[in-house]
């Protein structure tokens, strides 16, 4: 009895330490965002500001075209996530259920490309896009990110776990490949698809290097790029910088909390699948 309580206490302790480590930077960001300029650099650090300066948010928002950045980020994130979802579903189905010459070799080659670091591709991709005349346009921000080998791999594995008999049954019931994919496979793969969407949306929302390289005008910046240029413009006004950062990550935190249930379900299901 005592032993059980002790081990439970230990588990909680570890979990609490972990979550404190995870949450402290966020808490610090938020606290800083509502401090007065004087409190920001104070030593020892101020944990609870004397009065909450919510107007920092208003000020930060008005100092740069954040509305424009937000719209850009939303457009890029939504379109590249939807696009990737479509390409992933189609490719995963082809690689798991259709039989064509060279399928497995092609898939191995695709997996091989995962070993190429993204940075190596920056210059060739930039050159390609600039030859296409897409620099500083939405195409440049979206189209190179419409497919992800990792997602295809993840979904293909999930599809392989779905019994072959289902596709036979569907075929006899009068379902063609495409219909079977959308009415049977996709609903069954919901947990995997949500994981893919979440990873993609967060990645796309936070991506910095690529948007920085392919955008030039202020109107095309996404939030992370806008935030960096804002930091040079705002100088050392950390409270404003933190207020802007808090605003930027909020949508992803909300998305995560909405989909969290499915992710846990997806992972749990993957564990007990026969």
């Amino acid at each position, binding site marked *: 009895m005592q032993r059980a309580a002790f081990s439970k206490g230990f588990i909680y302790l570890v979990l609490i330490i972990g979550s404190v480590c995870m949450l402290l930077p966020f808490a610090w960001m938020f606290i800083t965002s509502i401090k007065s300029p004087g409190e920001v650099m104070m030593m020892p650090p101020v944990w609870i500001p004397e009065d909450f300066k919510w107007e920092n948010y208003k000020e930060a928002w008005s100092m740069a075209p954040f509305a424009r950045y937000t719209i850009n980020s939303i457009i890029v994130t939504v379109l590249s996530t939807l696009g990737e979802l479509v390409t992933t579903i189609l490719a995963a189905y082809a690689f798991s259920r259709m039989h064509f010459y060279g399928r497995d070799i092609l898939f191995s080659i695709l997996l091989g490309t995962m070993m190429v670091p993204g940075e190596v591709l920056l210059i060739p991709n930039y050159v390609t896009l600039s030859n296409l005349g897409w620099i500083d346009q939405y195409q440049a921000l979206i189209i190179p990110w419409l497919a992800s080998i990792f997602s295809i791999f993840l979904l293909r594995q999930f599809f392989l776990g779905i019994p072959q008999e289902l596709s036979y049954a569907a075929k*006899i019931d009068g379902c063609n490949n495409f219909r079977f994919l959308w009415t049977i496979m996709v609903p069954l793969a919901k947990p995997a698809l949500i994981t893919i969407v979440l990873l993609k949306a967060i990645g796309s929302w936070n991506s910095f290097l690529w948007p920085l390289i392919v955008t030039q005008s202020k109107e095309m910046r996404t939030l992370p790029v806008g935030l960096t240029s804002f930091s040079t413009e705002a100088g050392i006004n950390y409270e404003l910088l933190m207020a802007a950062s808090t605003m930027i990550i909020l949508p992803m935190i909300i998305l995560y909390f909405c989909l969290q249930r499915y992710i846990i379900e997806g992972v749990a299901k993957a564990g007990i699948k026969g």
Partner: protein
Amino acid sequence: MKIQLKELSMKFDDVLAVNGLNVHINKGELVSLLGPSGCGKSTTLFMLAGLYKPSSGEMYFGDTLVNNVEPENRGIGMVFQNYALYPHMTVLKNIMFPLKMAKVPHKKAEEKAIEMANLVQIGHLLDRKPKQLSGGQQQRVAIARALVKQPQLLLLDEPLSNLDARLRIEMREEIRRIQQEVGITTIFVTHDQEEAMSISDKVLLMKDGQFQQYSKPQEMYDHPVNMFVGKFMGNPPINMIPVTFDHKNLSIQINGTDEKLKVTSKLNYELVSGNQMLLGVRAEDFVLEKLEGISNSFSAKVDLVERTGRDTLVHATVGNHAIRALVNQDFVVKPSNIVKLSIRKNRLQLFDAETELNLVLGKE
């Protein structure tokens, strides 16, 4: 719909899974495809369903050649071993699915699906998901889904193998009832000879892709065409005793003993290749006596007596050949007793030791 297979073969890479099958199935019959695993019975079923394309040969449904007809246009329903129900759909949606694909108006489809559900007695489970059902109930849903399009042919791929023993008997009676009620031509794949015997109009027995015998179940049991069929059908398995045939006296002598028996059954002499044969007798076809002087019988020493309640299984040896005989429960016998065994009239089989063919002439 009558089904006809002509020289149907299926090759996977270098393996001949089905070799030159010729079968004719009458309208409304329930036929079992029987054989040990890997004998090509499921492959044959998948070819009938259109899921595999045969390497050669022809398949006729009615008078139509269906080799190149897509599965959905063959007018078939199929039940899979793991039922293959769509897990994210309710029972009703599962049954309606084939109709939805055939663009039947929603209301009509629902009516038909409910009618089918009632036929298979799951009308009260329509809102459940497959996961919330027992194996037997899932089975019924799968049958309803297979039948809802009113197919001409129902294909069942080992439908009972995932059920426990009691449910298996219940479901096989149920399948027979539904089949008779709908009057649909049905092909049933199984590796269980008892299952095949109990529900089929006819049994098609295969081994290693080769056709063995196609006949009524009782006929297959009473007159197996070769040793494989004889051994495959029946439990306890048929006794096989090596004997030497005496052409002059039409008698057999059990190898390694002096025991002789007269053969009264008519033999097909064209098939006889030598004098070495195997005497095949089913356990229940022996008549045991403890008295001396019974004509046309042989002696054996009792080794073991197994009582199963309904009857008694006697293990005995003649020469060095083990024999199993089923006797009435009030026949009292002890190990090391000597008993006299005779064979019931016309219940003996003689297999050629070389060709393994049954030499006894059948009924026809």
